[in-house]
C-alpha cells in the first residue's frame, strides 16, 4: 500500500478520474490543487513537498474510506511529493457517485481532511533567494529559513 497515495511523479488526472467512474456512478467531482506563484507576499519560484510517508499513506487511506462510507461513493486521491514548479498539480481528489450531491460532498470532505490531517510539508523557494517552511499556524504563514534575508522567525 505504500506509494499508493503519495507520488513523486506528475499526477495523471485523467487516470485518477477513470479509477472512480463506473457505469452506475454518473457524477464525478474533482479537486486539483496547483502550485501558485505567490505566497506570504513573496514570489514563489518552486517548492518541495515532503511527507512522513507511512503515516501519510495510512491517513489518506482512512480519509478515503470515511468518504466512501459516508456518501456511498468511490474516491481516488494523490498527493505529489518532491520538487514542483509553478502550475504543477500538487494534490488531486476525485469522487464519483450516482448523483452530484454526494460527489461534491465527498470531494470536499477529502480535500479538507487531507489539508488538516495528512503529514505533508511544503518548502517554498522564492525568486528573491529566500526559502521558507510553510506553516499555516505561524504568523505570516511561513518560517523563513536561517541565512536568508528577513529570517526573523526561524
Amino acid at each position, binding site marked *: 500500500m505504500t506509494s499508493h497515495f503519495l507520488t513523486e511523479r506528475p499526477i495523471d488526472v485523467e487516470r485518477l478520474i477513470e479509477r472512480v467512474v463506473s457505469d452506475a456512478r454518473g457524477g464525478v467531482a474533482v479537486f486539483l490543487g496547483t502550485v501558485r506563484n505567490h505566497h506570504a507576499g513573496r514570489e514563489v519560484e518552486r517548492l518541495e513537498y*515532503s511527507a512522513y510517508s507511512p503515516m501519510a499513506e495510512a491517513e489518506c487511506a482512512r480519509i478515503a474510506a470515511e468518504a466512501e462510507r459516508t456518501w456511498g461513493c468511490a474516491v481516488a486521491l494523490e498527493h505529489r511529493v518532491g520538487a514542483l514548479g509553478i502550475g504543477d498539480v*500538487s494534490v488531486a481528489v476525485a469522487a464519483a457517485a450516482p448523483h452530484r450531491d454526494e460527489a461534491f460532498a465527498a470531494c470536499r470532505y477529502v*480535500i479538507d481532511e487531507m489539508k488538516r*490531517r495528512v503529514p*505533508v510539508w*511544503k518548502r517554498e523557494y522564492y525568486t528573491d533567494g529566500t526559502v521558507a*517552511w510553510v506553516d499555516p499556524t505561524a504568523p505570516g504563514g511561513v518560517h523563513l529559513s536561517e541565512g536568508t534575508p528577513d529570517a526573523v522567525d526561524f
Partner: protein
Amino acid sequence: MTDTAVDVTVTVQFLARYAELIGTDSTQVTLRAPATVSDVLGAVRSRFPGARRLPDRPLCALNLGQVDLGTEVAEGDELALLPPVAGG
C-alpha cells in the same frame, strides 16, 4: 526480554522543519520504564540544543497514529514529531 529489562528504547523521527531545527532526521532514546511521550520529548530537549525551538506541545505520532503527551511508550516504538501540516 528478561526480568531486568526495565528500559524502553524508542526511535524518534524529526520531520520536515523539525529535522532542520534539531540537525538530524532521527535519534534513539532509552528511558527507564514506564515512560511517556512527554518523557521522550524531555530527553530530546536535553540532548539537542536545537530542540529548544520546538513548541511546548508538538504534534506527536506514535507508530503512525496521533497521540497526546501522556501516552506511554513501549520498546521499539516509533515516535514522530510533526510540524503543523501544510499539504494540498
